[in-house]
């Protein structure tokens, strides 16, 4: 079973809570996906506003664990402050740490990310860093105190799927004991299955479900895809071969000429 910071998690799919057509569809999609962990954020509340409370009540009613994010933060200071505020509101030391370095690609600022991770880990946070697929950065994040890594496979919301399988394989190979979650860039269930077949521990996605024609059905499809990929990894997939290899026995063939 998947273990993240000492917590045993039955589903290997983590789902975001943004961009759904309605809160009701979001709730139904989360249930259909089988996800045990959902991501949430913190935003300014208007005076007298109740929207935050309503959203939080709905999430709590679903019986899932929350992973608050620092989405939109472009500096270490912003990310660290947001994380502290999230810890108080959501009563969890888990934080999906995002320090964004580029507006167009939403690529992580890996230098700021490592610095923020070190600060937060030293203050008792359990950090889930949203990072690139860079091997050296991954090592630095582990040195900083992270015990889980969340590399992207393509830019957030791009739906392009794994763009660099070699880098993902390399990460998996080097950090065989570290829970690795592919976060961002997944567009289709087959993308999720692909990274799970590589041995990734879990997948985190949002847009691919929320913006699907039928988010609830797509959530269920992703749940199955993740499970299927995991089972395939454990079963030991066949390596590709250069030449054809017959599957039907050649011994015992009739001779007609």
């Amino acid at each position, binding site marked *: 079973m998947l273990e993240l910071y000492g917590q045993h998690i039955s589903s290997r799919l983590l789902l975001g809570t943004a961009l759904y057509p309605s809160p009701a569809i979001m709730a139904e999609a989360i249930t259909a996906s089988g996800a045990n962990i959902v991501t*949430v954020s913190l935003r300014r509340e208007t005076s007298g506003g109740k929207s935050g409370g309503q959203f939080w009540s709905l999430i709590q009613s679903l019986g899932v664990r929350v992973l608050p994010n620092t989405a939109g933060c472009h500096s270490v200071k912003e990310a660290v402050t947001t994380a502290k505020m999230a810890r108080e509101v959501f009563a969890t030391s888990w934080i999906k740490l995002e320090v964004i370095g580029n507006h167009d690609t939403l690529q992580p600022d890996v230098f700021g990310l490592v610095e923020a991770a070190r600060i937060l880990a030293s203050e008792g946070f359990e950090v889930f860093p949203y990072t690139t697929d860079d091997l050296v950065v991954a090592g630095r994040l582990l040195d900083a105190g992270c015990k889980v890594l969340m590399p992207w496979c393509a830019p957030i919301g791009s739906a392009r799927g794994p763009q660099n399988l070699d880098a993902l394989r390399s990460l998996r190979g080097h950090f065989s004991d570290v829970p690795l979650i592919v976060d961002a860039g997944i567009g289709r269930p087959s993308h999720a299955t692909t990274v799970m077949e590589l041995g990734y521990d879990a997948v985190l996605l949002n847009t691919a479900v929320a913006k699907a024609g039928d988010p609830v059905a797509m959530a269920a499809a992703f749940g199955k895809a993740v499970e299927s990929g995991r089972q395939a990894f454990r079963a030991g997939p066949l390596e590709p071969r250069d030449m054809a290899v017959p599957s039907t026995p050649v011994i015992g063939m009739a001779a007609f000429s």
Partner: protein
Amino acid sequence: MKLTINGEQHEVTAATLAALLADLDYEGGWLATALNGEVVPARERDGCALADGDRIEILAPMKGG
């Protein structure tokens, strides 16, 4: 005194962060607050004195990816 609350200018009389939240009709255990970029936990809002020019952030749970 003048405060910047969630990016907007406000003229207020509240002396503490707790009083400010009450005056502006913010309620609920789900709110998080910061004063001039530093987190102020809920239990410390009563004792958190405000001064002219302070910047205050009042945040709540929101959907996220």
